[in-house]
């Protein structure tokens, strides 16, 4: 009996962790490139959730078709946000950008609350579950985690093998040097921010299948993403994937063996401990 519970907990943790990882990849990209912490991340996740939910409710669209829609909306939103707001604070010290994005977060929260009522909603179970022995692999969690892994791999390929990806990596490691050798840093900022927001909203679309949706539910996702970004070393997508798995496992084990209510607290404590003990992350080098 305890073996099944253990295995089930691991499965849930892995699947949820992979989904969480994608949200933090958006954030790590933005932080790596621009040194801006996207504190509105959780609210963008919620926006993604709602996109899938409404497409499903109104047009009874398969959630998987909602994913590209969410990505496109995220990219457009990111571009607008960059052009009107972020551009003006791009090279300023982080604290101003934190407060500005705090403002963005409260605008998003309130707009979603007014538009879509403070109800808790769920996307109905869409994909059938698999049984492996005694363990259930929920289809609603399996699909998003597969999409998350595929997206991450695509991003990695782009980062590694294209000129564009190389210039992003160059900007992450040193933007002055990058601009010296001819990288148009402003363009990279724009692209990085836009892609980052796009991925965040896309991850929200995935989360819609896993968790219930509330307009005010963004903050935990922001904090999960922060934790994963720091734990997985800033600017490193693979680190995000690994750290995402760890956080997913930690929350799911807390849920199974203690109480579900405490699992956010556990991951916040991991956040604070990471900051204190290993601020450079699991794979970072000590400076």
């Amino acid at each position, binding site marked *: 009996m305890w073996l099944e519970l253990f295995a089930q907990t691991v499965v849930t943790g892995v699947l949820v962790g992979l989904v969480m990882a994608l949200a933090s990849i958006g954030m790590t990209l933005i932080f790596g490139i621009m*040194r801006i*912490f996207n*504190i509105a991340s959780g609210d963008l996740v919620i926006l993604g959730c709602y996109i899938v939910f409404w497409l499903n409710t109104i047009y009874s669209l398969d959630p998987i078709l909602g994913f590209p829609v969410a990505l496109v909306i995220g990219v457009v939103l990111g571009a607008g946000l960059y052009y009107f*707001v972020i551009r*003006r*604070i791009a090279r300023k*010290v*982080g*604290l*101003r950008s*934190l*407060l*500005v994005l*705090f*403002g*963005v*977060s*409260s*605008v998003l*929260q*309130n*707009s979603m*609350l*007014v538009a879509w009522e403070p109800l808790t909603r769920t996307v109905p179970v869409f994909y059938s579950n698999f049984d492996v022995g005694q363990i259930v692999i929920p289809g609603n969690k399996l699909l998003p985690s597969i999409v998350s892994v595929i997206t991450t791999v695509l991003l990695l390929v782009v980062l590694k093998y294209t000129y564009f990806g190389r210039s992003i990596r160059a900007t992450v490691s040193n933007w002055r040097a990058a601009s010296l050798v001819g990288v148009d840093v402003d363009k990279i900022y724009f692209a990085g921010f836009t892609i980052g927001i796009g991925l965040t909203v896309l991850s929200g679309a995935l989360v819609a299948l896993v968790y219930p949706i509330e307009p005010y539910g963004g*903050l*935990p996702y*922001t*904090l999960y993403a*922060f*934790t994963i970004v*720091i734990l997985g070393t800033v600017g490193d997508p693979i680190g995000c994937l690994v750290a995402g798995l760890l956080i997913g496992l930690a929350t799911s084990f807390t849920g199974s063996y203690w*109480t579900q*209510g*405490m699992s*956010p*607290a556990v991951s*916040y*404590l991991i*956040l*604070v401990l990471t*900051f*204190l003990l290993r*601020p450079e992350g699991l794979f970072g080098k000590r400076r």
Partner: protein
Amino acid sequence: MYAEHLLKMNSLVICLAFSVVVGVIGFVSEAATTAYLYAMIELLILTYSLNLFTGFSGYINFGHVIFYGIGAYVVAVLAFNLAALLPTFLYVIAGAVFASLVAIAIGFPVLKLRGDYFAIATLGVNEAVRVIIINTRDLGESRGIAILGYIPTYDIRSLYAMLLATLFAVILITHFIYRSRLGYGLRAIKDDEDVAEAMGVDTRKYKILSYSIGAFFAGLAGGVVTLLYAYAFPDYFVIGRTIDMLVSMVLGGFGTIIGPLIGSVVYFVAKDALLIQFPFYHQVIFGIILMGLILFIPEGIVGLINRLLMKKGKKVRLE
């Protein structure tokens, strides 16, 4: 020289005069006005208490509201267990002291962090405390602790007096710190922490000291407010109240003596009016205002006034 010194006292005099006027109005008018001013003074105290740390040192604290919540819960727990054994103001002071002790305990590790990392860590600590309280049976879980009937509550005039006394204290302390070694040290940290440290400022001590002083006053405010509501519940820890404080502080001009006063009063009156006009959109409006402030006038109203004064060739500055 003497005249200039007198003018420099201006900010403090304005703040104290304002508090006296508000205090008198609150005492002579009917209960509804008193309640309105009560909420305003609560915001004033909170903004000042945030200003003591974040304003002076430049460290953004997204988790300041936990000290307010801790003050509230300590008062509720004491009232629940001791009833009216001791005078209630002692419970409030106990709550504030406990809040500042917690601040020291949190500050020791967390204040090692800088800039963004500090801000995020405070957000994490805030949510962790809230989630832990919601899951603790002795603290009433999400229901909170009701203390109606355990101690004499709802006496708005005497609570108003308590709050006013706190306001005077926090303004005086702000003025005192502004001109003290601690204040100069904190401003040096705000400008450049490494340089400050190299110049011999004990940055660690200064940060923890101002962090816990700020927590003390936030705890006082929380305790007094619990006595009014006769209730402590997890919503004391919501981020919304931190937004109120941050926006007020930035609006007025942070790290100044008069800034929090101007900011809180303008914010409070505007928010109240907007809530009545647009009950559903005030958070959108304040989000946009916060963005606009940071983008276009990051130095706040006090900074604007000072810029005007400088243009006119006056030597006086608000502080």
